């Protein structure tokens, strides 16, 4: 009797694991191919043959892995993928980690990048902010996984400081934008749109028919561009 219960439990747990794997493979999230914010997209929306979307949160460590690798190899990435393969590369910033109660910083960080987009230079600010978060926290093992220490709640000054190092972002305009909550609605709406698609964790990648959640780069090789290439090539292969 005891043996039957044990075997039954084993079958149940194994079945549950099987269900998880099958569900992950057949993830039914329908793609939303309309660009959310044109400032956060690279490539030509009119002529692009492929659409590569990354759902992200500034304080998501695995998103940071991906974006750091792209930033460090920006020229090659833009030439080999965006131009040569005619890809529309779009970043969809959410504050999911704030909504899920995992990071207070996700919300002001999200507001800041949307404010930078309003000033016309999302990309410089986005990469500069991610590099700072990597240098201050992720590279030191803070806020990288569920067992690591959490990143403390940061003041808005942390996000204003980035503007000082960029010619294209006006610090006063950034301060005013954040103080007046000018981009909160856009951030909230976009997070809600992502959650409606059952995307509750980031990074979440949609590349034409290929979708992937998570990014398996290595922490000790900061610019894990090989993993980026695998992801991009898997996306390109899904179309053919």
């Amino acid at each position, binding site marked *: 009797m005891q*043996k039957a219960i*044990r*075997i039954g*439990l*084993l079958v149940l*747990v*194994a079945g*549950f*694991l099987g*269900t*998880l*794997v099958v*569900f*992950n*493979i057949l*993830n039914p999230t329908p793609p939303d191919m309309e660009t959310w914010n044109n400032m956060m997209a690279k490539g030509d929306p009119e002529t692009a043959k492929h659409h590569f979307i990354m759902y992200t949160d500034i304080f*998501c*460590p*695995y998103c940071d892995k991906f974006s750091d690798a792209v930033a460090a190899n920006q020229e090659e990435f833009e030439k080999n993928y965006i131009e040569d393969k005619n890809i529309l590369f779009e970043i969809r910033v959410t504050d*999911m*980690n704030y*909504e*899920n*109660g*995992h*990071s207070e910083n996700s919300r002001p960080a999200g507001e800041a990048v949307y404010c930078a987009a309003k000033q016309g230079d999302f990309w410089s600010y986005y990469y500069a902010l991610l590099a700072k978060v990597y240098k201050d926290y992720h590279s030191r*093992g803070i806020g*990288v*996984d*569920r*067992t*690591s220490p959490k990143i403390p709640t940061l003041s808005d000054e942390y996000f204003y400081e980035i503007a000082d190092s960029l010619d294209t972002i006006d610090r006063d305009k950034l301060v005013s934008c954040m103080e007046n909550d000018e981009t909160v609605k856009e951030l909230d709406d976009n997070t809600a749109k992502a*959650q409606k698609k*059952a*995307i*509750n*964790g*980031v*990074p*979440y990648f949609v590349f034409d028919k*290929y*979708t*992937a*959640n*998570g*990014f*398996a780069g*290595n*922490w*000790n090789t900061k610019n894990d561009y*090989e*993993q980026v290439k*695998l*992801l991009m*090539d*898997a*996306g390109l*292969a*899904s179309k*053919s």
Partner: protein
Amino acid sequence: MAVRTIIETVSDRSKFALVSTVYLLKKRKYLLSFLISFFVFLFFLTFFRDGSSNWQLIWSGLPLDRKLEVIGKIFPAMLENFISLYGVTIIFLSFFQAIVIMQIIFAWRNREKNGALDSASTGGIGAILGFIALGCPSCGVGLLTPLLSAIAGASAVALAETIGHIFTILAFALLLFSIIRLGYINYVIIGSKNYKEEHAKSH
């Protein structure tokens, strides 16, 4: 009183299990089975440690050489486990699973099939729970998150994180239970074998 007896029994059996584990690790063929099991479990746990992204790459339209590249990247990642607490958890899970496998093989070879099967099923549940608990739900990587998202919507991440922690603790508890139970059985078998050998020598 009853609690004290249970604690004493568990404590005694743990010591016996430790003795039998060390004894088996000194035997070359059991050490080999331990090392192979440890490597295999560590490989698969590392493969899924960041959720299903590696799995998705394997099932994508990538050519074979690129898929082999995905597998090849797991080996340095296995070493990387040693530098984070989460990675160390994975190493310990693999270590305990390998001990269970080694104990099962010894019990099986010594006609203790019932004990071996019982521990295999308990240890098996522990191993599977360990797999399910992998990932970092708040980072979007974890086997549990997509399924729970469909059921629990926006609260799925917090739920997945809590369930993940519970499953990890359960996995360790079940594996330890299997090791103590089977280790004690094997201690008795080893003692009996040694007695028979000495008895045969003296006659």
